[in-house]
Each structure stands twice: as structure tokens, then as C-alpha cells.
């Protein structure tokens, strides 16, 4: 029983990374219609930035606030300099563009920091284990779970309860009609892109004490993210979050009970979704 709880926690912690990053992917797709292939690279940049900041004496809690702001800047630059020029064309062009971009980012980091991982210690206050009776849970995993829940909830509130969120949702729903109703959709494109990248960066910072920080850490991550958004329904905010945690759980249970098929299980789940609900669990048919 306690083993099961531990696997569940492990799954929810891994799912937290997926949910946060997939949320960023979904917001970007919703407003810009762009599937950002470099999302994995941005996640990696977040983790690397955290490691560099630690080297400069800024600990985890500072990085948690600073890195998303830095990545927001990266996202704004990416959108302004590159992505923007292809928005009018078929989304496949931006898919390809961001693919090229991720090749560049990964190799730049590889050149600068090498292929072996950068060190990162568990932040003070989050090491060790929490004891609930007979149950011992990793403090950091509990933190990751709770923190990603909170961030997802905050983003959800931001999107549903604020005026900015309403505008973003309206632009997602029907950009043309939003424009007709006097909303300057174009003004929100850049900040939304930056915001999505910042979420990937945030996931990266949280992964830093938890995973090996290497230039390639995002290259597998982004494929899983694609599976997550296909399962959840591309463009669906709720779908991204639910599918993120779901995939995390599938991965963790898989590793625990059928290690041979752990990684394959995610894709089997995706195949089942594509077969029975092609638009994804929370997607609508017409979004294709």
C-alpha cells in the first residue's frame, strides 16, 4: 500500500512537469496556432539557467522566480524575430522553424556546458522525507506535486476569471470574431508566447534538482509532451493539465509494475486515444 502511494506521488511529480510544460504548449497553440517544437529545449534552458544561477549564488527559490522571467524574454525574442513571420502560413512551417531552433539551442548548450550533467542539489528545506505514520514520502516530490497543482490552478484562474484571460480565451476560440468585436488579438500574441515559454522554463527549474541537467534532457521530454497534448486534445487547457498528470502516473506505475513497458505504455495510451477519440480526451472535433 505504501509503495503504491509512493508510486502515485512519483507519477504526480513527473506529471507536474508534463502538465506545466504542456499547459504552455497548449496556450501557445490556442492563441497562435503554433506547435512549439522547441518546448523541450526551453525546458532544458530553464534547468540550465537554474544551474548557472546556483553557480552565481542564487539558490533554488530565487531561480524559481527569476528563470521564468528570463525565459519569458527568450520567448518574446523568439516570437518577435522568428515565429511572427510565419504565423499567416500553415502551422507546419512554425513547427519546422522551432525544430530548427531547438537543434541550435541544444548544440549551443552542449558546446558551452558539455555533455555531462550540471550539478544541482536539493534546495534547503526540501531534502529528506516526510513521515506520515508508516508512510515516508520524498519532500521534494510532495513539493513538486503541490507547486505544479497551484501553478496550474493559478493559470486556470487567470484564464477564466480575469479580463486578460477572457481575451486570450476568446482569441483561442475564434480570433476573427474577437477582432470583429474590437479586441486587439495581435497585441496578445507576443506575451502569450512568452508566457508559454516561461511555463516550460518553470518546469525546467523544478526538474533541476530532480533530473540530470544535460543539453539533451528536453529532447525526449518534448516527444512525451506531444503525446500529452494529443491525449488531452491540442489547444485544450484542461486537457493538457489532466493528460500531463495522467501520463506521469502511467509512466510511474509502468516503471513500478511493468518496467519493460513503462515508456511504451504512454504511446499505447496515445494510440488508444487516437483510435477511439481522435480529437483527444478534452478536444473538440473541429479543432483539427
Amino acid at each position: 500500500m505504501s509503495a503504491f502511494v509512493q508510486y502515485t506521488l512519483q507519477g504526480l511529480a513527473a506529471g507536474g512537469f508534463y502538465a506545466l510544460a504542456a499547459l504552455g504548449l497548449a496556450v501557445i497553440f490556442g492563441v497562435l496556432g503554433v506547435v512549439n517544437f522547441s518546448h523541450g529545449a526551453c525546458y532544458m534552458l530553464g534547468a540550465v539557467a537554474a544551474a548557472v544561477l546556483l553557480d552565481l549564488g542564487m539558490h533554488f527559490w530565487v531561480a524559481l522566480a527569476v528563470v521564468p522571467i528570463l525565459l519569458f524574454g527568450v520567448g518574446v525574442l523568439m516570437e518577435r524575430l522568428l515565429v511572427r513571420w510565419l504565423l499567416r502560413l500553415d502551422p507546419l512551417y512554425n513547427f519546422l522553424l522551432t525544430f530548427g531552433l531547438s537543434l541550435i539551442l541544444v548544440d549551443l548548450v552542449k558546446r558551452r556546458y558539455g555533455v555531462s550533467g550540471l550539478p544541482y542539489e536539493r534546495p534547503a528545506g526540501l531534502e529528506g522525507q516526510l513521515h506520515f505514520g508508516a508512510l515516508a514520502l520524498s519532500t521534494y516530490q510532495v513539493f513538486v506535486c503541490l507547486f505544479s497543482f497551484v501553478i496550474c490552478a493559478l493559470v486556470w484562474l487567470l484564464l477564466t476569471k480575469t479580463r486578460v484571460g477572457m481575451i486570450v480565451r476568446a482569441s483561442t476560440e475564434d480570433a476573427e470574431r474577437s477582432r470583429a468585436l474590437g479586441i486587439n488579438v495581435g497585441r496578445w500574441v507576443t506575451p502569450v508566447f512568452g508566457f508559454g515559454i516561461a511555463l516550460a522554463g518553470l518546469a525546467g527549474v523544478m526538474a533541476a534538482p530532480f533530473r540530470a541537467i544535460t543539453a539533451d534532457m528536453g529532447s525526449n521530454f518534448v516527444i512525451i509532451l506531444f503525446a500529452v497534448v494529443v491525449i488531452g486534445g491540442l489547444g485544450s487547457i484542461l486537457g493538457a493539465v489532466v493528460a500531463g498528470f495522467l501520463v506521469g502516473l502511467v509512466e510511474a506505475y509502468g516503471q513500478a509494475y511493468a518496467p519493460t513497458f513503462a515508456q511504451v505504455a504512454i504511446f499505447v495510451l496515445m494510440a488508444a486515444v487516437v483510435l477511439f477519440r481522435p480529437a483527444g480526451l478534452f478536444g473538440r472535433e473541429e479543432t483539427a
Partner: protein
Amino acid sequence: MTHPVKDPSNTTGTSGVDASEPTLTGRRRGPWRWVMLAVGLFTALALPWFIYPPVAMDIAAWALFAVSVDLLLGYTGLLSFGHAAFWGSSAYVTGLIAIHWGLPFPVAILAGMLFAMAIAVPIGYLSVRRTGIYFAMVTLAFAQMIYFIANQLSGLTGGENGLQAIPKSFFGIESVETDSFSFYYAAIGLIFLGAWAAWRIIHSPFGRVLVAIRDNPARARALGYDVDRYKIIAFVLSAGLAGLAGGVFAMSHGFSSLEELNWTTSGKVVLITVLGGIGTLWGGPLGAAIVVTLEDKLTSSGFEGTGIILGSIFVVIVLLFRHGIWGTARDLLQRRMAGRRDRSD
């Protein structure tokens, strides 16, 4: 949805529409096609005299691989980001058959190709349910599934080490089995066979239906074509070509690694295809020649960070020259010819 890679500036029908179109330029381009074919054949046959034969073989294999991707992207309007699954699985099956049964290498490669086509049936069946960007993501994810499966079956595939020492058995002809220069000429026939098949597919009535589906799937459906079935068949045929290329690649190197199945391989072949020019059969070989040579030069010069150079070139191509090198050159030529004709009229 229209042709996924169409761009609004493209009004001249350059997206994969070939010279058989009954236009004035089409008829004029007739003899050029034979000249191109002769030049292409000559280049392919002369290549190992000028560059290191294994590199020449790499170019030929990647060229056919790119053609297989273009068959889907340029002529059916589907961007597969998972073609490594077919290239890589064929590389493994080819290698396993050559190692365990010692069959002549063309037989092993054909078996690998058939295996690639077999796994393409379920993957294609599931993937064609989505179009556009979804298709790219779904194929990518399925290919990664194949990668993980191969990694798990380490007893068979050698896991992280891959398959080592694949013998090039060729009816006891020793020069082919040991010398990469002779091997090139023994194996290039398979590449030609694949290229010829691609050409036949594109110029067949079946290929015309694919183009119709690319340009207007709803109309193709209204005309009574089973769109999904055509897409699946195109997907399986394309996987076969990718498998043929992957088998030749594995044979040439004498090993097959997990890298052949990884998504970076799928990315590289898409990069080659787009660089050369989508919807132009000649773009693939051109892109392959550039990318393989560039990688070879960069690696041998000790430069780490091939991705920076390739990625930058790719970003520039996608931003500014979306018809690729071949397509852009062709557009320029056509515009000049059209200009000359206007003046003479």
C-alpha cells in the same frame, strides 16, 4: 484543410505539380527532364570517384530516404515526423537477417523493407485519422514507441550497443563484400530501384489522386475516392522506400544503432527534404548531398555543434526560401523563361 505546406505566395502551382501538366512550360520542360535524369544518373555513378565511397553511399541512402518523405509531404500533403521508425527498423531487420542467416545483402535489405512496410500498416492506419500538425505529432510519437521497443528488446537488437559487424554477403564476390568502392556499385542499383518506384508512383493515376487529396481532400472524397485508404497506401509505400534506404545504410556501415530509430533521424530527413525542396523529386538528393557532406566536413574538422550550423540553415530556409533550394532555383528559372516569353509575344 488545403495543402499543409502551401504558402499564399505560391500561385504558380509549383507545389509538386510536375511537367506533365498540359501547359506551355510543361511541354517545353519535356526534354529538360531527360537531361536532368542523365545528369543525375551520371552524378550518382561518378560520385565514389570523387568522394570517399562510404560517404557517397550515405548520400545515396539519405537521398532515397528524403524522396520517401517527400512522397508524403510534397505529393500527399502529410508531414511524417516519424520516418526513422521505418528507416531504423529496416536497418535492424536487414542486419539481423544478414548476421543470423548470412543471406546476400540485397535479399536482407528487401526483407528489411518488407518489415518496414508491415509496421507502417498499423501506424499509418492510426495516424491518417489526423491531418496537418497532428499527423506530424502522432507519427513522431509512434516512431518513438518503436525506438523504446527496440531499446527494450536488447537481446535481439543489442540495446545501446546496436548491431555490430553486419556482413555484406554478395554471392561470394569478394570485392563487393570487403571494398566499399565496389559495394557502392552493387548497392546503388537498389537506390535507383527505389527512386524509379517513387517516380512511377508519383506519375501514376494513383499519384494524381494523392495530389488531388493534398490539394482538396473534401473534393477528392466527393469524387468517390476513399481518402484515408489512399493515404494509408501512400504511407506504406513511403515507408517501404524509407526501409530500402535504411537497409542500404545499415549494410554500408556494417552496423545499426538505436540512433537510426531515434526521432533526431526523422528530424534530419525532414530537414534534408525541406532544404532540397518540397514536392520536387530532385530536392531530396540535392539536400542529402549538402547535409551529408556538410556533416562529414564539420565532424572531420573537429567542430562540435553541427546542430548550430544545420539548424541555422534550416531556420533561414523555412523563413525565406520555403520552396527549398531546388524549388527556389526552379521558380527563378521559370520566372525568367516566362519573362522572355512575355517580351517575345
